[in-house]
């Protein structure tokens, strides 16, 4: 129904620039998730697309039209807010019908569309109720319904699931995904939760301090992170980072890395960092170990176990293994190995470099 494109979009509040030029082309029907820690500018970016914040420089296009100077109501979008922002004095029906009434939709059509949307979201028994008489999950659905009923070209979601409990969040996540597929509406979804981002996104934008560090499918971002920030933010538990001092080619002392073929330090990068994901590390016998450390504590989660080691130079290392594998005792000396192909190198600015 609509494409969205952002061209070097920047935003400043007074003299502080909070978004330093973001570019992305979003295709029709695509589900894009903007993910990042608090304060990275992800909500501000969404609000600029919505028209709730002005664009300091750059262009926002919706469906090929430049919308920088358009009011929110003229952009053909719908938004779901974190606190739902339902109209507290109106019934569920009126909440959903509000936008249609303003658009002067004929009464029978309003009735029909609201009923159809309520049916889709299983809200029919609650149409006469006020928002305060609903549970958190039901309010969330009403907020969704208010967006859907208007049949907008774009859905904007601003952390819509953060106020729900963990179980409901998982359920609503699946429902949102299914609804978006069914309705085929281009969606932009903001979250700080990387699991939500991974499960919902066709493509995701990882934001870091006002910059889009990486844009790509969840698997691309996970497997091939462009920066140390992305590598550390996506994936739980996060990627292990070993500072340059930890490895010396050919070294074999306690806490030092053995037998790494590539050596970015030799290629002129001073102080590079090695990144490796917990699931790519394996406990092994002393003879095969490329890293060794003392087990500080372990988390047994059932399906998997997380083993936290402290290396000789004080660096923490997390190993993730299957729940069936044996877990050593606290204080035991452990040896770890991995494949060179699973290692990422980052320069001192956190940028990925070839290894």
């Amino acid at each position: 129904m609509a494409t969205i494109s952002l061209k070097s979009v920047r935003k400043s509040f007074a003299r502080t620039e909070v978004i330093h030029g973001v570019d992305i082309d979003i295709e029709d029907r695509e589900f894009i998730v903007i993910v990042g820690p608090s304060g990275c500018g992800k909500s501000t970016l969404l609000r600029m697309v919505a028209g709730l914040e002005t664009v300091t420089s750059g262009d926002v296009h919706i469906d090929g039209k430049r919308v920088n100077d358009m009011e929110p109501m003229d952009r053909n979008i719908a938004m779901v807010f974190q606190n739902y922002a339902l109209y507290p004095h109106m019934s569920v029906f009126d909440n959903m019908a509000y936008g249609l009434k303003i658009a002067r939709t004929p009464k029978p059509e309003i009735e029909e569309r609201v009923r159809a949307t309520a049916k889709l979201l299983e809200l029919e028994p609650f149409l006469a109720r006020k928002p305060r008489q609903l549970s958190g999950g039901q309010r969330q659905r009403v907020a969704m319904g208010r967006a859907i009923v208007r049949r907008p070209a774009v859905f904007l979601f601003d952390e819509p699931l953060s106020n729900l409990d963990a179980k409901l969040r998982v359920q609503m996540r699946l429902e949102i995904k299914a609804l978006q597929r069914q309705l085929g509406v281009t969606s932009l979804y903001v979250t700080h939760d990387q699991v939500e981002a991974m499960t919902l996104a066709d493509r995701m934008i990882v934001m870091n301090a006002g910059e889009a560090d990486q844009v790509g499918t969840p698997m691309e971002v996970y497997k091939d992170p462009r920066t140390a920030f992305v590598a550390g933010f996506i994936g739980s538990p996060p990627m292990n980072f070993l500072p340059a001092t930890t490895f010396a080619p050919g070294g074999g002392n306690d806490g030092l890395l053995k037998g790494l073929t590539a050596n970015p330090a030799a290629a002129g990068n001073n102080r590079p960092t090695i990144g490796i994901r917990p699931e790519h590390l394996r406990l092994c016998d002393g003879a095969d170990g490329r890293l060794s450390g003392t087990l500080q504590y372990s988390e047994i989660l059932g399906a998997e176990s997380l083993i936290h080691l402290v290396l000789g130079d004080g660096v923490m290392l997390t190993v993730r293994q299957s729940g069936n594998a044996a877990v050593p005792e606290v204080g035991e000396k452990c040896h770890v190995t991995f494949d060179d192909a699973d290692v990422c190198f980052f320069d001192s600015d956190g940028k990925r470099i070839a290894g």
Partner: protein
Amino acid sequence: MDKRVTFGGWTLPYLLLLPQVAVTAVFFFWPAAQAIYQSAFIPDPFGLKALFVGFGNFSFLLTDPFYLASFKTTAVFSGLVTIVSMALALWLAIMADRIIKGSGAYRTLLIWPYAVAPAVAGVLWLFMFSPNVGLVSWYLGVLGYDWNHVLNPNEAMGLVVVASSWSRISYNFLFFLAGLQAIPKSVIEAAAIDGAHFWRRFWTIVFPLLSPVTFFLLVVNVVYAFFETFGVIHTITSGGPQQATTILVYKVYSDGFVGQDLGSSAAQSVILLLVVGALTVIQFRYIERRVHY
């Protein structure tokens, strides 16, 4: 759960209550009892003897055309004061809420008139509109309008309404502004995305959500117009011309202290007491039951 403070003995709690009880007893219960007692008598002007008349003062008042006219005057006056002061305050609050630059200065300026005593406010407006020396009335004269609130009852009413409303706008403004700022911003934004422009949003979202504040102010302003505008009326019109601005409270004063009809004045006080009582009951009922969303 409420946190409750428990006292060891009973002396301290009663001692702590005493100042409030004493003030209420001396300044409310005693004079109120006196008024009820005196309303049953007609004393002679020198206070030497008093004739018991039972409800005579009341039955006279309720058939007295001047007293009934004063009721009507009070209704018109308090209705106008309430509407004018609330409407202007709401408008100013909406504007002050939208301002981004220098909002602190605007707010301070808008709150200032509240610090001016009613009698002073009355004199202020009297000087501007005085038919002899008033600046505004002189300019009105230049424009061909002969302003004279000393002779014209409607002009007199207009002037006391304006003066009373002016000193009340600040108070209402404060409450409206606080009410506006308590409305979640995201609700307004949701309405904007739903397609509602500013005034549509105001009438369909903001105004309904403001209704508890509006209702509270409505009651408080009516009570204000009934009782606290004495100073304004006394300084500007003294109830004239021809009792056109004699509201009930002013009539209590002029009949009692000017006309020396203390029995009737006391009876009027009792009637006013009932009116205040009724208003207070309404006020508390609705404040207790403030709408929670």
